[in-house]
Every structure is written in structure tokens, then in C-alpha cells.
């Protein structure tokens, strides 16, 4: 009996806008000018906000955080394709996307500054806070998608995570559930080549992360993750598929973490500067600006105006962060349960009495 081939697979790679800012006309998603400018502005804001956080951290005004410089396209491009009805499920390196969703920057600062208020986004729906536990948000996205489907919503969920996350059970289990349930979810792996000190080839023996989708019976695609239009186009297509009821997609965004893993990390211990330099030349902001310039949508003067605007917006938010009312020491007792319990209340009174005594003794 001859062997027969049951399955074979192929994985596509998508790039719409190259490093020089040249667009592939056949693949151009045809965004109107103002949307292109919006995308560029969002990436500039993300970059500047990230760099400001680095300075604040160095000055002791912020805690440890995970910079996203270099990865702006992989969160801003997809976010541009989303509507307010879609759920935004981040990991911890999606600053650009979070700001686009309307999370005020001071909330991001509060989170990394050690205040729970950084998880509270007043008036903003369908936007989850940062997930620190790697991959833990992936099954949530599968469940959110299921709920959207059950409730008959014509909307979907976009969920981000890193290359390291694809080693966790939560990745495999979450993607599998979403695939079996045909949950309307777009899974975006920000493959930034490193998980702290672990390079991709020590994380997985697969040639691509996208091909893991094949095993779960869903489409997977590799996208140039520093190409904001490629990321937009791939997410747009995956969202359409999800909303149509055709289930989830896995997008591998090939990008690079230009900074340290977190501000507590020293990348010189495990990677070479020339690798970083090579990726610097593939900066998503540079190619987007080149495209805008080639379409007469951008020039130095507009850039200067934007820089000033962004600086002012960031200054304002830093001020809100630093003057934020941190007055309620017992806030932790308020949200233990949705219903009050006498033991928690008793502990709260004891806690407050203790604080008063401390103040008196001091």
C-alpha cells in the first residue's frame, strides 16, 4: 500500500510597505490619507511616550517597565483596523495600541508607577488592562470571542502576546479552543526575536510561529511586523473573517525589541549590538514617514508641529500622573469582593487604626 500525503502546508509572508517606504500597489489596503496620517501620529506618540517612560524610570519617577520602542507598527497597525465593538486584549508591549484605544497615558504611567489605578480606564469599554503573566490572556480572548458569538455581536477580539508566550500551555490551549469554537479572534504574536535572554531558536524548533496555526486548523500568516500597513491589512482581513463567522487567525508579526526587556534587564549579556543596529534600520516610523512624504502628506514643518503637540500631550499626562490623588490607603479593601464581608470590614478597621497609630507615633 503506497503512502499517501494527507496534508502539506505553506505559510505566506506579507509586506506592504518596505524599509524605504515603497508600497506594493497590489497589496495597498487603500487607506484614505487621513487614516494614514492617523497611523503615523499614533506611532510617533507611542515612541515618544515610551522614551519618556525610560527617562522617568531612570529618574526614579516610575517603576520597572517593558519598553515597546521599535514595535509600534505591530500594535498600532492592527488597532487601526479595530472598531470600538472589538475587544482589545493586550500583553505588556502594546503601548501604541492602548493609547489608540483611548487609554490615557497617565493610566499607563500609574500602572508602571505602582498604582492599581493604572488598570482603571474610566468610560472605556472592551479594553483589558496589561497582562503580566505571559500567555495568560490568550484563553481569555478565546472566551471573549465565544461570548461575542453567543451574544450575536458582529465584532471580534484582538489578542497580543510575544514569541515566548507561544511556549506556554495557555497559548496552545487558548488557540485550540478558539479554533474548535470558531471564536472570532485575531491572535497577534509580536515575535520580537527574544524572550528576555532566550532567542527564538531556543524557544521553538518551528521555522515560523505562524505555522503553529496549521496544527490547530486555522490560517496563519507571517507579516513584516515593522510594516504598519502590512499589519493593518493582515488584521483587517482576519477581522473580516472572524466577523463572518469563519473563526480565528494567527498573525506572526516579525519585529524586534530595540530596547532592554525591562528596565531591570541588561541585554548586553545575551545579544550583539550589530543585531540591534540592523533592526534599527527597519524602523517602522521611518518607512511610514517616507510613504507620507512621497504622497505629499508630510514635511518637516508638519513633523515639527506634531513633535511639539506630542510633547505637550505627554507633559500634560505626566503631570496628571504625578499629581494623581493617592489619598486612599485602604482602597485595597474596597474591591476584595463585590459584596461586603464582615471579616474584610473588620480587617479594614484594624488596618486604618494601625495607620492612625503609626501617624501618631511618628
Amino acid at each position, binding site marked *: 500500500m503506497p503512502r499517501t500525503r494527507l496534508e502539506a502546508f505553506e505559510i505566506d509572508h506579507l509586506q506592504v510597505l518596505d524599509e524605504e517606504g515603497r508600497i506594493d500597489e497590489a497589496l495597498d489596503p487603500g487607506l484614505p490619507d487621513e487614516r494614514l496620517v492617523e497611523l503615523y501620529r499614533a506611532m510617533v506618540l507611542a515612541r515618544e511616550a515610551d522614551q519618556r517612560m525610560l527617562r522617568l524610570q531612570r529618574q526614579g519617577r516610575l517603576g520597572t517597565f517593558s519598553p515597546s520602542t521599535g514595535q509600534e507598527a505591530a500594535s498600532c497597525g492592527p488597532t487601526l483596523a479595530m472598531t470600538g465593538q472589538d475587544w482589545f486584549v493586550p500583553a505588556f508591549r502594546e503601548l501604541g495600541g492602548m493609547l489608540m484605544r483611548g487609554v490615557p497615558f497617565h493610566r499607563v504611567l500609574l500602572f508602571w508607577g*505602582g*498604582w492599581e489605578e493604572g488598570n482603571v480606564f474610566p468610560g472605556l469599554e472592551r479594553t483589558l488592562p496589561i497582562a503580566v503573566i505571559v500567555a495568560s490572556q490568550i484563553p481569555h480572548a478565546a472566551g471573549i470571542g465565544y461570548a461575542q458569538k453567543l451574544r450575536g455581536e458582529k465584532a471580534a477580539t484582538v489578542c497580543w502576546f510575544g514569541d515566548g*508566550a507561544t511556549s*506556554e500551555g495557555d497559548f496552545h490551549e487558548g488557540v485550540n479552543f478558539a479554533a474548535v469554537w470558531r471564536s472570532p479572534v485575531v491572535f497577534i504574536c509580536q515575535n520580537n526575536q527574544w524572550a528576555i*535572554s532566550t532567542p527564538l531558536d531556543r524557544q521553538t524548533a518551528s521555522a515560523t510561529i505562524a505555522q503553529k496555526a496549521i496544527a490547530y486548523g486555522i490560517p496563519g500568516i507571517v507579516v513584516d511586523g515593522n510594516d504598519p500597513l502590512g499589519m493593518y491589512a493582515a488584521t483587517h482581513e482576519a477581522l473580516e473573517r472572524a466577523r463572518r463567522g469563519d473563526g480565528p487567525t494567527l498573525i506572526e508579526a516579525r519585529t524586534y525589541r530595540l530596547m532592554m526587556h525591562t528596565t531591570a534587564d541588561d541585554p548586553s549579556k545575551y545579544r550583539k549590538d550589530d543585531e540591534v543596529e540592523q533592526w534599527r534600520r527597519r524602523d517602522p516610523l521611518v518607512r511610514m514617514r517616507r510613504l507620507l512624504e512621497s504622497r505629499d502628506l508630510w514635511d518637516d514643518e508638519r513633523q515639527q508641529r506634531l513633535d511639539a503637540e506630542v510633547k505637550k500631550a505627554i507633559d500634560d499626562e505626566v503631570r496628571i500622573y504625578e499629581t494623581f490623588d*493617592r489619598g486612599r490607603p485602604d482602597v*485595597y479593601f474596597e474591591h476584595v469582593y463585590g459584596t461586603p464581608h464582615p471579616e474584610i470590614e473588620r*480587617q479594614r478597621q484594624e488596618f486604618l487604626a494601625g495607620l492612625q497609630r503609626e501617624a501618631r507615633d511618628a
Partner: protein
Amino acid sequence: MPRMTMVQAINLALHQAMERDPSVVALGQDIGVNEGVFRVTAGLHAKFGPERVIDTPLAEAAILGTAIGMAIAGLRPVAEMQFSGFSYLMLGQYEGHATRYRSRTHGQVTVPLVVRMPYGGGVRALEHHSESREVLYAHLPGSKVVIPSGPRNARALLAAAIEDPDPVVFMEPKQSYRAFREEVPAEHETMPIGRAQVVQQGTDITVISWGAMMRPTLRAVAEVAEARGASIEVIDLLTIAPLDGDTIVASVEKTGRAVVVQEAPRSFGPAAEVIARINDRALMHLEAPVRRVAMPDVMTPYFGRERLYFPGPHTVQRAIEETLDF
């Protein structure tokens, strides 16, 4: 004797264990080339190579699961969980297999492994990086939970844990990693697992703690001793499970009073078990109710407010005084 931080002392124990016994291997995330996010595994990868110092993919359940397999097959793995807050992903493997193999095979299959993990607050760390959840592992039959309080006992206990025939969860109080130095003997040294240590003798009251809480506890004890001339006995548990009831009971039989200081949330914590032991075996010797000082039963606060919630020297001092005055 060289003076070392806890990080250096743990590192010394790892180097010596790997030198003494070729079956000892280390595995975990970023422990090799990067030498651990706290540099606890410094020098191991360079000295023992990538086959014995294994940088794993990012999966806690598989780190422990493969360590169990290695242990069953004759190795002595020392696995690292990067932070205790991510160790819950290994709980199924730990409860379901590491703690059970000996019992269910009547000793034919055993799992001699160590899982190291930094735990606890006080370093202005992120969410999931500051919790004290030793009780989760202490509650499991067959599980040993060891928590050192200083460089010297950290080294000696880790050396013992690696030689132990059973799974040991070794929780490292990260706020003590570099906070102070102690003399640590260069030669191999162990301490018995399962035994508490009376670190200061006294007759009026027994104060019991472990891990990072030992330092504020000793400060409070010194204050009270100085202010009131009280004679205070201090016990460092060192092993949470199996708990050394004998040492606790002998002390309380002598002093008649006790305070237990725990960093973890109050309810169902190790302090509750310590108090239950005292009730079981020394109730008639008590002259005052046993007090516990603990975090409230709330989510471990983000670092902006954490100082307010962790037990500090003042709260410990007050508990000791009130128990003495009862």
C-alpha cells in the same frame, strides 16, 4: 569566612552541588547565558555548560514536568521559577506528580528535585512579583517548603534541599537577596530540613517568623527587649512544611506567650498552622491568646502602597507588647 549576600550564598550552594554531584542539573528561564534575572545562577553556565545549566523555553509546567522526569531517571534537577508568582502554572505537575510518586509507588519511584523561586515583596516590583504564597505548597502532603532568612542558612538549606530525597520548594525572600551580608563558610555546609531554629533564647514570650519577616521581627524584638527588659525567645521556622512543632511547643511551654509574624495574607496561612499546633499541644501553658501579625486578606498591593500593608517593625512591636501585657 567570606562575607556574602544571600544571592552569593545561594550561588555558592549551586556551584558546590554541581561540583560534588554530576547528576545535579539546573533548569529554568534565563538562568544560563543571562545568569538569572537576579544573577543567582552566575557562573554556572560558563562552568558547567548548557547541558547541565539549561535555558528552557517559557513554560513553567514543562519546566517542572521535565524536572520530574529527570529526577525519576536519576538526575537531581534544581528548577527555577523566575518569580513565585508564575509558579502556579506548575502546580498541577507539582501536586499531581512531584509530591505523589513516592507514596503511590511505595517508594519505588521518587522525585528528588528542588524548585527555587524568589518570593515576597519589598523591592518595588510589578504585580505578580511580590506575593507570599508559601502556604499553597505547604498544604500539600509530600511537599517540603523551605524558606531561608539569611545568607548562611540559605546556603546550608539549599545544599540540604538538593541532597534531600523528596521534592523541596525553596522560596527565596528576594528583598533579602542583597540587603545584608553574613559570614558563610567556604566548605560544604548543610542544615536539617524540617527543623526550626531558636535564634535567640528567652523566657517571657516566643516570637515566631520566617523569611524576609525575620529582620523586622528581630528589630521589633530588640526594641521591646530594650524598652521593657523583656526576655524574648525568637524562632526562625526555616522549614514551613513539614512544620517543626516540637521546637515551637517546647518554647511556648516555657514562655506561655507567642506572636507569629507572617508576610502572607492572614487567613489560612502558615501562622494559622503554628497557632493550631500550639493549641493542640501547649494550650494549658498559655497565659495569653497567641497573636498573629500578617498582611490583610487583600490582593498584594502594587508597590505604591505595599509598605502600608506589609507587617513592619512597629506592628510587630505592638503585638509583642500587647501579648506581654495581656
